[in-house]
Protein backbone atom coordinates (compact mmCIF):
# COMPACT_ATOMS: atom_id res chain seq x y z
CA UNK A 1 0.00 0.00 0.00
CA UNK A 2 2.79 2.36 0.87
CA UNK A 3 4.65 1.92 -2.40
CA UNK A 4 2.05 4.13 -3.98
CA UNK A 5 2.78 6.86 -1.50
CA UNK A 6 6.46 6.99 -2.04
CA UNK A 7 8.97 5.66 -4.47
CA UNK A 8 12.10 6.19 -2.43
CA UNK A 9 12.20 6.30 1.33
CA UNK A 10 15.66 7.83 1.24
CA UNK A 11 14.20 11.11 0.02
CA UNK A 12 11.48 11.17 2.63
CA UNK A 13 13.68 12.45 5.41
CA UNK A 14 15.40 15.08 3.32
CA UNK A 15 13.30 17.87 4.81
CA UNK A 16 10.67 18.47 7.44
CA UNK A 17 8.08 19.05 4.71
CA UNK A 18 8.70 15.76 2.90
CA UNK A 19 8.75 13.82 6.18
CA UNK A 20 5.47 15.37 7.26
CA UNK A 21 3.94 14.78 3.85
CA UNK A 22 4.96 11.15 3.94
CA UNK A 23 3.80 10.45 7.52
CA UNK A 24 0.49 12.21 7.03
CA UNK A 25 0.11 10.43 3.70
CA UNK A 26 0.09 7.05 5.44
CA UNK A 27 -3.38 5.52 5.37
CA UNK A 28 -5.38 6.14 8.54
CA UNK A 29 -6.02 3.33 10.99
CA UNK A 30 -9.54 2.02 11.28
CA UNK A 31 -9.77 2.15 15.07
CA UNK A 32 -12.85 -0.02 15.42
CA UNK A 33 -11.47 -2.52 12.93
CA UNK A 34 -8.10 -2.76 14.68
CA UNK A 35 -9.72 -3.21 18.09
CA UNK A 36 -12.05 -5.82 16.72
CA UNK A 37 -9.37 -7.80 14.91
CA UNK A 38 -7.10 -7.82 17.96
CA UNK A 39 -10.00 -8.90 20.16
CA UNK A 40 -10.98 -11.62 17.70
CA UNK A 41 -7.45 -13.00 17.50
CA UNK A 42 -7.32 -12.88 21.29
CA UNK A 43 -10.06 -15.48 21.49
CA UNK A 44 -8.02 -18.17 19.73
CA UNK A 45 -7.75 -21.25 21.90
CA UNK A 46 -4.19 -22.59 22.22
CA UNK A 47 -4.06 -25.87 24.16
CA UNK A 48 -1.87 -28.83 25.11
CA UNK A 49 1.20 -29.35 22.89
CA UNK A 50 0.68 -26.11 21.01
CA UNK A 51 0.44 -24.32 24.33
CA UNK A 52 3.61 -25.97 25.58
CA UNK A 53 5.45 -24.82 22.45
CA UNK A 54 4.00 -21.33 22.75
CA UNK A 55 5.09 -21.07 26.38
CA UNK A 56 8.67 -22.12 25.59
CA UNK A 57 8.79 -19.74 22.64
CA UNK A 58 7.45 -16.93 24.82
CA UNK A 59 10.06 -17.64 27.50
CA UNK A 60 12.80 -17.44 24.87
CA UNK A 61 11.42 -14.05 23.77
CA UNK A 62 11.26 -12.41 27.19
CA UNK A 63 13.32 -9.32 27.87
CA UNK A 64 13.51 -9.73 31.63
CA UNK A 65 13.29 -6.21 32.90
CA UNK A 66 13.97 -4.29 36.07
CA UNK A 67 13.72 -0.52 35.79
CA UNK A 68 13.19 0.73 39.31
CA UNK A 69 14.88 3.49 41.21
CA UNK A 70 15.50 0.91 43.93
CA UNK A 71 17.47 -1.50 41.68
CA UNK A 72 20.64 -2.79 43.28
CA UNK A 73 23.58 -4.74 41.87
CA UNK A 74 22.35 -7.71 43.91
CA UNK A 75 18.92 -7.57 42.36
CA UNK A 76 20.40 -7.40 38.86
CA UNK A 77 22.67 -10.38 39.55
CA UNK A 78 19.74 -12.40 40.88
CA UNK A 79 17.72 -11.50 37.81
CA UNK A 80 20.59 -12.52 35.52
CA UNK A 81 20.83 -15.89 37.25
CA UNK A 82 17.13 -16.37 36.65
CA UNK A 83 17.48 -15.27 33.03
CA UNK A 84 20.05 -18.00 32.39
CA UNK A 85 18.33 -20.73 34.39
CA UNK A 86 14.58 -20.22 34.09
CA UNK A 87 13.45 -23.74 34.92
CA UNK A 88 14.48 -27.30 34.26
CA UNK A 89 14.30 -27.96 30.53
CA UNK A 90 13.07 -24.45 29.76
CA UNK A 91 14.90 -22.13 27.37
CA UNK A 92 16.77 -19.11 28.67
CA UNK A 93 15.27 -15.68 28.11
CA UNK A 94 16.35 -13.43 25.23
CA UNK A 95 17.80 -10.55 27.21
CA UNK A 96 17.81 -8.67 30.46
CA UNK A 97 16.95 -5.00 30.43
CA UNK A 98 18.43 -2.59 32.98
CA UNK A 99 19.42 1.03 33.51
CA UNK A 100 22.79 2.09 32.00
CA UNK A 101 24.68 2.21 35.31
CA UNK A 102 23.87 -1.46 35.94
CA UNK A 103 24.86 -2.73 32.48
CA UNK A 104 28.37 -3.69 33.61
CA UNK A 105 26.93 -5.83 36.41
CA UNK A 106 24.63 -7.63 34.00
CA UNK A 107 27.38 -8.11 31.41
CA UNK A 108 29.70 -9.79 33.89
CA UNK A 109 26.91 -11.94 35.31
CA UNK A 110 25.78 -13.11 31.87
CA UNK A 111 29.18 -13.62 30.24
CA UNK A 112 29.14 -16.55 27.85
CA UNK A 113 25.48 -17.43 28.47
CA UNK A 114 24.09 -16.08 25.21
CA UNK A 115 21.61 -13.88 27.06
CA UNK A 116 21.84 -10.35 25.71
CA UNK A 117 22.09 -7.23 27.80
CA UNK A 118 19.73 -4.41 26.89
CA UNK A 119 19.90 -0.99 28.42
CA UNK A 120 17.43 1.83 28.38
CA UNK A 121 18.96 5.17 27.51
CA UNK A 122 18.22 8.73 26.33
CA UNK A 123 16.80 10.10 29.60
CA UNK A 124 14.45 7.16 30.04
CA UNK A 125 11.49 7.15 30.63
CA UNK A 126 10.46 10.73 29.83
CA UNK A 127 13.11 11.52 27.23
CA UNK A 128 13.20 15.11 28.42
CA UNK A 129 16.77 16.20 28.03
CA UNK A 130 19.13 17.66 25.47
CA UNK A 131 20.44 15.64 22.56
CA UNK A 132 23.99 15.73 23.98
CA UNK A 133 22.82 14.17 27.23
CA UNK A 134 20.86 11.52 25.35
CA UNK A 135 23.80 10.61 23.16
CA UNK A 136 26.22 10.43 26.07
CA UNK A 137 23.67 8.35 28.03
CA UNK A 138 23.68 5.94 25.09
CA UNK A 139 27.47 5.98 24.83
CA UNK A 140 27.70 5.14 28.55
CA UNK A 141 25.55 2.05 28.09
CA UNK A 142 27.40 0.96 24.95
CA UNK A 143 30.79 1.42 26.60
CA UNK A 144 29.63 -0.74 29.51
CA UNK A 145 28.92 -3.53 27.05
CA UNK A 146 25.21 -3.34 26.26
CA UNK A 147 24.16 -5.37 23.20
CA UNK A 148 20.91 -3.51 22.76
CA UNK A 149 19.82 0.05 23.46
CA UNK A 150 16.21 0.92 24.23
CA UNK A 151 15.74 4.62 23.49
CA UNK A 152 12.64 6.73 23.98
CA UNK A 153 11.44 9.17 21.36
CA UNK A 154 10.70 12.78 22.22
CA UNK A 155 6.91 12.56 22.48
CA UNK A 156 6.60 16.29 23.02
CA UNK A 157 8.27 16.98 19.70
CA UNK A 158 6.31 14.22 17.98
CA UNK A 159 2.94 15.45 19.22
CA UNK A 160 3.69 19.04 18.29
CA UNK A 161 4.50 17.88 14.78
CA UNK A 162 8.26 18.38 14.89
CA UNK A 163 8.96 15.07 13.16
CA UNK A 164 12.35 16.17 11.90
CA UNK A 165 13.61 16.62 15.45
CA UNK A 166 12.44 13.16 16.47
CA UNK A 167 14.02 11.73 13.32
CA UNK A 168 17.36 13.39 13.87
CA UNK A 169 17.50 12.26 17.48
CA UNK A 170 16.97 8.65 16.47
CA UNK A 171 19.66 8.96 13.79
CA UNK A 172 22.10 10.47 16.29
CA UNK A 173 21.42 7.79 18.90
CA UNK A 174 21.71 5.08 16.25
CA UNK A 175 25.14 6.46 15.37
CA UNK A 176 26.13 6.38 19.04
CA UNK A 177 25.01 2.75 19.30
CA UNK A 178 27.71 1.44 16.98
CA UNK A 179 27.34 -2.34 16.92
CA UNK A 180 24.52 -2.38 19.44
CA UNK A 181 20.97 -2.93 18.25
CA UNK A 182 18.64 0.01 18.63
CA UNK A 183 15.11 -0.40 19.94
CA UNK A 184 12.97 2.69 19.67
CA UNK A 185 10.28 3.11 22.32
CA UNK A 186 7.26 4.96 20.93
CA UNK A 187 5.40 5.19 24.27
CA UNK A 188 2.11 4.57 22.54
CA UNK A 189 0.13 5.35 25.68
CA UNK A 190 1.07 8.98 25.16
CA UNK A 191 0.57 9.14 21.40
CA UNK A 192 -3.21 9.49 21.72
CA UNK A 193 -4.29 7.96 18.40
CA UNK A 194 -3.62 4.83 16.38
CA UNK A 195 -2.74 7.02 13.41
CA UNK A 196 0.08 8.48 15.49
CA UNK A 197 1.27 4.98 16.39
CA UNK A 198 1.52 4.12 12.71
CA UNK A 199 3.33 7.38 11.92
CA UNK A 200 5.76 6.98 14.81
CA UNK A 201 6.47 3.39 13.76
CA UNK A 202 7.37 4.46 10.22
CA UNK A 203 9.35 7.42 11.46
CA UNK A 204 11.45 5.19 13.73
CA UNK A 205 12.01 2.59 11.03
CA UNK A 206 13.04 5.14 8.41
CA UNK A 207 15.47 6.62 10.94
CA UNK A 208 17.14 3.23 11.31
CA UNK A 209 15.52 1.44 14.25
CA UNK A 210 16.29 -2.28 14.52
CA UNK A 211 13.27 -2.78 16.76
CA UNK A 212 10.20 -0.72 17.56
CA UNK A 213 8.89 -1.04 21.08
CA UNK A 214 5.50 0.00 22.42
CA UNK A 215 6.14 1.44 25.83
CA UNK A 216 8.43 2.23 28.69
CA UNK A 217 6.19 0.40 31.12
CA UNK A 218 5.90 3.60 33.16
CA UNK A 219 2.74 4.84 31.44
CA UNK A 220 -0.65 3.16 31.38
CA UNK A 221 -2.10 1.94 29.04
CA UNK A 222 1.06 0.31 27.73
CA UNK A 223 1.21 -2.59 25.27
CA UNK A 224 -2.38 -3.15 24.22
CA UNK A 225 -3.09 -5.72 21.54
CA UNK A 226 -4.41 -3.28 18.89
CA UNK A 227 -1.28 -1.14 19.21
CA UNK A 228 0.93 -4.19 18.75
CA UNK A 229 -1.17 -5.15 15.75
CA UNK A 230 -0.65 -1.74 14.14
CA UNK A 231 3.08 -1.90 14.75
CA UNK A 232 3.27 -5.40 13.30
CA UNK A 233 1.45 -4.19 10.19
CA UNK A 234 3.95 -1.35 9.96
CA UNK A 235 7.00 -3.64 10.06
CA UNK A 236 5.37 -5.95 7.52
CA UNK A 237 4.69 -3.07 5.12
CA UNK A 238 8.12 -1.59 5.74
CA UNK A 239 9.77 -4.83 4.69
CA UNK A 240 7.60 -4.98 1.57
CA UNK A 241 8.82 -1.52 0.60
CA UNK A 242 12.45 -1.61 1.66
CA UNK A 243 13.36 -5.26 2.11
CA UNK A 244 14.66 -4.53 5.61
CA UNK A 245 13.14 -6.46 8.50
CA UNK A 246 12.48 -4.65 11.77
CA UNK A 247 11.58 -6.33 15.06
CA UNK A 248 8.70 -5.53 17.41
CA UNK A 249 8.70 -5.49 21.19
CA UNK A 250 5.50 -4.98 23.15
CA UNK A 251 6.35 -4.05 26.72
CA UNK A 252 4.42 -3.09 29.80
CA UNK A 253 1.25 -4.66 31.10
CA UNK A 254 1.97 -8.15 29.73
CA UNK A 255 1.69 -10.17 32.92
CA UNK A 256 0.05 -13.47 32.15
CA UNK A 257 0.72 -16.40 29.88
CA UNK A 258 -2.60 -15.68 28.21
CA UNK A 259 -1.43 -12.17 27.29
CA UNK A 260 1.83 -13.57 25.90
CA UNK A 261 0.08 -16.19 23.81
CA UNK A 262 -2.34 -13.61 22.45
CA UNK A 263 0.68 -11.63 21.29
CA UNK A 264 2.17 -14.68 19.60
CA UNK A 265 -1.12 -15.35 17.80
CA UNK A 266 -1.10 -11.75 16.65
CA UNK A 267 2.43 -12.13 15.27
CA UNK A 268 1.61 -15.36 13.50
CA UNK A 269 -1.55 -13.98 11.91
CA UNK A 270 -0.16 -10.57 10.97
CA UNK A 271 3.45 -11.07 9.88
CA UNK A 272 3.88 -14.84 9.98
CA UNK A 273 6.72 -17.17 10.85
CA UNK A 274 9.50 -14.77 9.90
CA UNK A 275 8.91 -12.79 13.08
CA UNK A 276 8.29 -15.75 15.41
CA UNK A 277 11.78 -15.78 16.86
CA UNK A 278 13.57 -13.92 19.63
CA UNK A 279 15.57 -12.11 16.96
CA UNK A 280 12.46 -10.34 15.70
CA UNK A 281 9.90 -10.37 18.48
CA UNK A 282 10.42 -9.70 22.17
CA UNK A 283 8.18 -9.40 25.19
CA UNK A 284 9.29 -6.79 27.67
CA UNK A 285 8.18 -7.86 31.12
CA UNK A 286 9.14 -8.34 34.71
CA UNK A 287 6.35 -10.44 36.21
CA UNK A 288 5.43 -12.39 33.05
CA UNK A 289 8.25 -14.93 33.36
CA UNK A 290 6.95 -16.41 36.63
CA UNK A 291 3.50 -16.87 35.17
CA UNK A 292 4.96 -18.59 32.10
CA UNK A 293 6.97 -20.90 34.34
CA UNK A 294 3.93 -21.65 36.47
CA UNK A 295 1.87 -22.53 33.41
CA UNK A 296 4.74 -24.63 32.15
CA UNK A 297 4.80 -26.53 35.41
CA UNK A 298 1.02 -26.97 35.27
CA UNK A 299 1.36 -28.63 31.87
CA UNK A 300 4.19 -30.84 33.11
CA UNK A 301 2.67 -31.95 36.42
CA UNK A 302 -1.06 -31.65 35.83
CA UNK A 303 -1.57 -29.61 38.98
CA UNK A 304 -2.06 -25.87 39.25
CA UNK A 305 1.15 -24.19 40.34
CA UNK A 306 1.48 -21.73 43.20
CA UNK A 307 3.75 -18.69 43.51
CA UNK A 308 5.26 -20.06 46.74
CA UNK A 309 7.45 -22.29 44.61
CA UNK A 310 8.88 -19.59 42.34
CA UNK A 311 11.28 -16.77 42.99
CA UNK A 312 10.16 -13.45 44.37
CA UNK A 313 11.44 -10.76 42.03
Amino acid at each position, binding site marked *: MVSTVTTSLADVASSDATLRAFLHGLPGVDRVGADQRAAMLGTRSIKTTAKAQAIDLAISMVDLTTLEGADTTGKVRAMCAKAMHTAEGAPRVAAVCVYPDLVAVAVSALKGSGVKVASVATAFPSGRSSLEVKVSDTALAVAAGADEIDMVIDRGAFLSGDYQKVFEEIVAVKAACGEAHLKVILETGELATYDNVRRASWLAMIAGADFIKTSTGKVSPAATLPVTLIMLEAVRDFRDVTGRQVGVKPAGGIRTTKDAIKNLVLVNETVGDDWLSPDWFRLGASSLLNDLLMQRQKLAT*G*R*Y*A*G*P*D*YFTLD
Partner: protein
Amino acid sequence: MSRLSVRKTYKLFIGGAFPRSESGRSYVVTSPKGDFLANASRASRKDARDAVTAARKAFPGWSGATPYNRGQILYRIAEMLEGRRGQFAEELPLGKKAGLEQVDAAIDRLVWYAGWSDKIASVRGSANPVAGPYFNLSTPEPSGVVAVIAPSDPLLGLVSAVAPVIVTGNTAVVVASESSPLAAITLAEVLATSDLPGGVVNILTGHQAELAPWLAAHMDVNGLDLTGVADPDLALRCEQEAAENLKRVIRPSSPDWSADPGIGRMTAFMETKTVWHPAGV
Protein backbone atom coordinates in the same frame (compact mmCIF):
# COMPACT_ATOMS: atom_id res chain seq x y z
CA MET B 1 -53.50 -9.81 33.87
CA SER B 2 -51.16 -11.60 36.28
CA ARG B 3 -47.52 -10.53 36.27
CA LEU B 4 -44.64 -12.81 35.44
CA SER B 5 -42.51 -13.59 38.46
CA VAL B 6 -38.79 -12.75 38.19
CA ARG B 7 -36.88 -15.88 38.95
CA LYS B 8 -33.38 -15.93 40.38
CA THR B 9 -30.44 -17.16 38.34
CA TYR B 10 -28.18 -19.13 40.66
CA LYS B 11 -24.61 -18.20 39.83
CA LEU B 12 -21.19 -18.63 41.40
CA PHE B 13 -19.62 -16.29 43.94
CA ILE B 14 -16.00 -15.45 43.10
CA GLY B 15 -14.04 -12.45 44.30
CA GLY B 16 -17.16 -10.68 45.56
CA ALA B 17 -18.91 -10.95 42.18
CA PHE B 18 -21.54 -13.34 40.88
CA PRO B 19 -20.27 -14.72 37.57
CA ARG B 20 -21.71 -17.62 35.63
CA SER B 21 -19.46 -20.59 35.16
CA GLU B 22 -16.69 -19.89 32.66
CA SER B 23 -17.76 -23.09 30.92
CA GLY B 24 -21.35 -21.88 30.52
CA ARG B 25 -22.66 -25.15 31.97
CA SER B 26 -25.47 -25.63 34.47
CA TYR B 27 -27.16 -28.56 36.15
CA VAL B 28 -30.63 -29.25 37.45
CA VAL B 29 -31.27 -29.03 41.17
CA THR B 30 -34.27 -30.94 42.46
CA SER B 31 -36.04 -31.17 45.80
CA PRO B 32 -35.69 -34.41 47.81
CA LYS B 33 -38.98 -35.53 46.21
CA GLY B 34 -37.56 -34.99 42.73
CA ASP B 35 -39.36 -31.78 41.81
CA PHE B 36 -37.47 -29.25 39.73
CA LEU B 37 -36.14 -26.35 41.82
CA ALA B 38 -33.63 -24.45 39.70
CA ASN B 39 -30.69 -24.64 37.32
CA ALA B 40 -27.44 -24.06 39.21
CA SER B 41 -24.12 -23.18 37.60
CA ARG B 42 -21.84 -26.15 37.13
CA ALA B 43 -18.38 -24.79 37.87
CA SER B 44 -15.35 -26.03 35.95
CA ARG B 45 -11.78 -26.42 37.13
CA LYS B 46 -11.03 -23.03 35.66
CA ASP B 47 -13.64 -21.47 37.91
CA ALA B 48 -11.93 -23.25 40.79
CA ARG B 49 -8.61 -21.82 39.67
CA ASP B 50 -10.09 -18.32 39.44
CA ALA B 51 -11.60 -18.73 42.89
CA VAL B 52 -8.21 -19.70 44.34
CA THR B 53 -6.65 -16.65 42.67
CA ALA B 54 -9.35 -14.43 44.21
CA ALA B 55 -8.90 -16.03 47.61
CA ARG B 56 -5.12 -15.58 47.46
CA LYS B 57 -5.55 -11.95 46.52
CA ALA B 58 -7.87 -11.37 49.45
CA PHE B 59 -5.62 -13.13 51.97
CA PRO B 60 -3.15 -10.35 52.92
CA GLY B 61 -5.95 -7.87 53.65
CA TRP B 62 -8.14 -10.32 55.53
CA SER B 63 -5.40 -11.95 57.58
CA GLY B 64 -3.94 -8.52 58.30
CA ALA B 65 -7.24 -7.12 59.58
CA THR B 66 -7.53 -7.01 63.35
CA PRO B 67 -9.22 -10.04 64.92
CA TYR B 68 -11.74 -7.65 66.43
CA ASN B 69 -12.62 -6.41 62.95
CA ARG B 70 -13.02 -9.94 61.61
CA GLY B 71 -15.29 -10.76 64.54
CA GLN B 72 -17.42 -7.72 63.81
CA ILE B 73 -17.82 -8.80 60.20
CA LEU B 74 -18.82 -12.32 61.19
CA TYR B 75 -21.35 -10.80 63.55
CA ARG B 76 -22.58 -8.67 60.67
CA ILE B 77 -23.09 -11.82 58.61
CA ALA B 78 -25.26 -13.15 61.44
CA GLU B 79 -27.26 -9.90 61.42
CA MET B 80 -27.88 -10.13 57.69
CA LEU B 81 -28.85 -13.77 57.97
CA GLU B 82 -31.32 -12.91 60.72
CA GLY B 83 -33.02 -10.50 58.34
CA ARG B 84 -33.49 -13.27 55.79
CA ARG B 85 -34.65 -16.04 58.12
CA GLY B 86 -37.89 -16.57 56.25
CA GLN B 87 -36.24 -16.80 52.85
CA PHE B 88 -33.73 -19.39 54.01
CA ALA B 89 -36.38 -21.40 55.85
CA GLU B 90 -38.31 -21.64 52.58
CA GLU B 91 -35.25 -22.60 50.57
CA LEU B 92 -34.13 -25.39 52.87
CA PRO B 93 -35.65 -28.77 52.03
CA LEU B 94 -36.86 -29.32 55.59
CA GLY B 95 -40.31 -27.87 56.07
CA LYS B 96 -41.13 -24.53 57.63
CA LYS B 97 -40.57 -25.25 61.32
CA ALA B 98 -37.44 -27.37 61.05
CA GLY B 99 -36.12 -24.91 58.47
CA LEU B 100 -36.45 -21.96 60.82
CA GLU B 101 -34.76 -23.91 63.58
CA GLN B 102 -31.83 -24.64 61.34
CA VAL B 103 -31.48 -21.02 60.27
CA ASP B 104 -31.49 -19.95 63.90
CA ALA B 105 -28.85 -22.54 64.72
CA ALA B 106 -26.71 -21.25 61.84
CA ILE B 107 -27.04 -17.66 63.07
CA ASP B 108 -26.08 -18.70 66.60
CA ARG B 109 -23.11 -20.61 65.20
CA LEU B 110 -21.86 -17.48 63.42
CA VAL B 111 -22.17 -15.42 66.59
CA TRP B 112 -20.34 -18.12 68.52
CA TYR B 113 -17.42 -18.13 66.09
CA ALA B 114 -17.45 -14.32 65.86
CA GLY B 115 -16.75 -14.21 69.58
CA TRP B 116 -13.71 -16.44 69.14
CA SER B 117 -11.96 -14.09 66.73
CA ASP B 118 -9.93 -12.18 69.35
CA LYS B 119 -9.74 -15.00 71.89
CA ILE B 120 -8.28 -17.89 69.92
CA ALA B 121 -4.77 -16.39 70.05
CA SER B 122 -4.94 -16.26 73.84
CA VAL B 123 -6.09 -19.84 74.09
CA ARG B 124 -3.74 -21.33 71.49
CA GLY B 125 -0.78 -18.97 71.84
CA SER B 126 1.62 -18.74 74.76
CA ALA B 127 4.41 -16.75 76.31
CA ASN B 128 7.07 -19.38 76.77
CA PRO B 129 9.47 -19.35 79.73
CA VAL B 130 13.06 -19.30 78.44
CA ALA B 131 16.43 -19.05 80.18
CA GLY B 132 17.66 -15.76 78.75
CA PRO B 133 16.83 -12.10 78.39
CA TYR B 134 14.16 -12.72 75.75
CA PHE B 135 10.46 -12.87 75.32
CA ASN B 136 9.53 -16.06 73.55
CA LEU B 137 6.05 -15.92 72.09
CA SER B 138 4.08 -18.52 70.20
CA THR B 139 1.18 -17.17 68.20
CA PRO B 140 -1.27 -19.01 65.97
CA GLU B 141 -1.52 -17.63 62.45
CA PRO B 142 -3.84 -18.41 59.55
CA SER B 143 -2.58 -20.93 56.97
CA GLY B 144 -3.70 -19.17 53.80
CA VAL B 145 -6.24 -20.33 51.27
CA VAL B 146 -8.44 -23.19 52.47
CA ALA B 147 -10.58 -25.29 50.14
CA VAL B 148 -13.78 -26.41 51.83
CA ILE B 149 -15.80 -29.25 50.36
CA ALA B 150 -19.00 -28.32 52.13
CA PRO B 151 -21.18 -30.96 53.80
CA SER B 152 -24.60 -31.77 52.41
CA ASP B 153 -26.30 -30.20 55.43
CA PRO B 154 -27.26 -27.15 53.36
CA LEU B 155 -27.02 -24.25 55.80
CA LEU B 156 -25.91 -25.20 59.30
CA GLY B 157 -23.22 -27.54 57.98
CA LEU B 158 -22.04 -24.95 55.46
CA VAL B 159 -21.84 -22.15 58.02
CA SER B 160 -20.19 -24.44 60.56
CA ALA B 161 -17.51 -25.34 58.02
CA VAL B 162 -16.85 -21.84 56.62
CA ALA B 163 -17.03 -19.67 59.75
CA PRO B 164 -14.11 -21.32 61.60
CA VAL B 165 -11.95 -21.09 58.48
CA ILE B 166 -12.40 -17.37 57.93
CA VAL B 167 -12.67 -16.15 61.52
CA THR B 168 -8.97 -16.84 62.09
CA GLY B 169 -7.93 -14.97 58.93
CA ASN B 170 -7.88 -17.67 56.25
CA THR B 171 -9.69 -17.18 52.98
CA ALA B 172 -11.93 -19.92 51.61
CA VAL B 173 -12.90 -21.57 48.36
CA VAL B 174 -16.08 -23.48 49.06
CA VAL B 175 -17.55 -26.24 46.91
CA ALA B 176 -21.22 -26.21 47.90
CA SER B 177 -23.20 -29.38 48.43
CA GLU B 178 -23.89 -30.94 45.06
CA SER B 179 -27.48 -31.93 45.86
CA SER B 180 -28.58 -28.79 47.71
CA PRO B 181 -26.50 -25.83 46.52
CA LEU B 182 -29.20 -23.16 46.47
CA ALA B 183 -28.90 -22.09 50.10
CA ALA B 184 -25.15 -21.68 49.56
CA ILE B 185 -25.69 -19.17 46.78
CA THR B 186 -28.31 -17.32 48.80
CA LEU B 187 -25.77 -17.27 51.65
CA ALA B 188 -23.35 -15.68 49.17
CA GLU B 189 -25.84 -12.81 48.81
CA VAL B 190 -25.70 -12.44 52.58
CA LEU B 191 -21.89 -12.48 52.55
CA ALA B 192 -21.77 -9.92 49.76
CA THR B 193 -23.76 -7.46 51.88
CA SER B 194 -21.91 -8.03 55.15
CA ASP B 195 -18.76 -5.93 54.63
CA LEU B 196 -16.87 -9.15 54.00
CA PRO B 197 -14.09 -8.17 51.56
CA GLY B 198 -14.50 -9.72 48.10
CA GLY B 199 -12.61 -12.98 47.69
CA VAL B 200 -12.54 -13.97 51.37
CA VAL B 201 -15.26 -16.51 50.70
CA ASN B 202 -15.75 -17.87 47.19
CA ILE B 203 -18.56 -20.32 46.54
CA LEU B 204 -18.67 -22.79 43.66
CA THR B 205 -21.58 -25.03 42.78
CA GLY B 206 -21.21 -28.10 40.65
CA HIS B 207 -19.93 -31.63 40.75
CA GLN B 208 -17.78 -32.42 43.72
CA ALA B 209 -15.83 -35.16 41.96
CA GLU B 210 -14.95 -32.72 39.19
CA LEU B 211 -13.73 -29.89 41.44
CA ALA B 212 -12.32 -31.42 44.61
CA PRO B 213 -9.25 -33.15 43.09
CA TRP B 214 -8.15 -29.93 41.34
CA LEU B 215 -8.40 -27.98 44.56
CA ALA B 216 -6.65 -30.76 46.47
CA ALA B 217 -3.78 -30.72 43.94
CA HIS B 218 -3.52 -26.93 43.66
CA MET B 219 -0.12 -25.78 44.89
CA ASP B 220 -1.51 -22.42 46.03
CA VAL B 221 -4.06 -23.95 48.41
CA ASN B 222 -2.85 -24.42 51.97
CA GLY B 223 -5.68 -26.30 53.64
CA LEU B 224 -8.37 -28.77 52.68
CA ASP B 225 -11.59 -29.59 54.50
CA LEU B 226 -13.01 -32.83 53.14
CA THR B 227 -16.05 -32.92 55.45
CA GLY B 228 -18.48 -33.01 52.55
CA VAL B 229 -16.81 -35.80 50.57
CA ALA B 230 -18.93 -38.90 51.01
CA ASP B 231 -17.13 -41.12 48.48
CA PRO B 232 -14.15 -42.73 50.28
CA ASP B 233 -12.20 -43.23 47.04
CA LEU B 234 -12.51 -39.56 46.16
CA ALA B 235 -11.51 -38.55 49.69
CA LEU B 236 -8.46 -40.80 49.54
CA ARG B 237 -7.44 -39.37 46.18
CA CYS B 238 -7.84 -35.83 47.50
CA GLU B 239 -5.73 -36.65 50.55
CA GLN B 240 -2.99 -38.07 48.36
CA GLU B 241 -3.01 -35.04 46.06
CA ALA B 242 -2.95 -32.73 49.07
CA ALA B 243 0.24 -34.37 50.34
CA GLU B 244 2.25 -32.87 47.47
CA ASN B 245 2.50 -29.46 49.14
CA LEU B 246 1.66 -30.61 52.68
CA LYS B 247 -1.78 -29.08 52.91
CA ARG B 248 -3.52 -29.18 56.26
CA VAL B 249 -6.31 -31.67 55.72
CA ILE B 250 -9.30 -32.51 57.89
CA ARG B 251 -11.76 -35.30 57.18
CA PRO B 252 -14.08 -35.76 60.14
CA SER B 253 -16.50 -38.67 59.98
CA SER B 254 -20.19 -37.69 59.96
CA PRO B 255 -20.07 -34.73 62.35
CA ASP B 256 -23.09 -33.77 64.45
CA TRP B 257 -23.73 -30.15 63.55
CA SER B 258 -26.05 -29.50 66.48
CA ALA B 259 -23.37 -30.43 69.02
CA ASP B 260 -20.96 -27.94 70.61
CA PRO B 261 -18.44 -27.36 67.80
CA GLY B 262 -15.33 -26.85 69.94
CA ILE B 263 -12.27 -25.06 68.58
CA GLY B 264 -10.88 -27.95 66.54
CA ARG B 265 -12.05 -26.59 63.19
CA MET B 266 -10.35 -23.27 63.86
CA THR B 267 -7.05 -24.72 65.01
CA ALA B 268 -6.92 -27.19 62.12
CA PHE B 269 -6.15 -24.32 59.73
CA MET B 270 -3.78 -22.34 61.91
CA GLU B 271 -0.04 -22.68 62.24
CA THR B 272 1.89 -21.69 65.31
CA LYS B 273 4.77 -19.29 64.89
CA THR B 274 7.29 -18.94 67.69
CA VAL B 275 9.47 -15.84 67.79
CA TRP B 276 12.27 -14.74 70.10
CA HIS B 277 12.16 -11.06 71.00
CA PRO B 278 15.00 -9.29 72.81
CA ALA B 279 13.60 -7.99 76.10
CA GLY B 280 14.07 -4.34 76.98
CA VAL B 281 17.70 -3.15 76.65
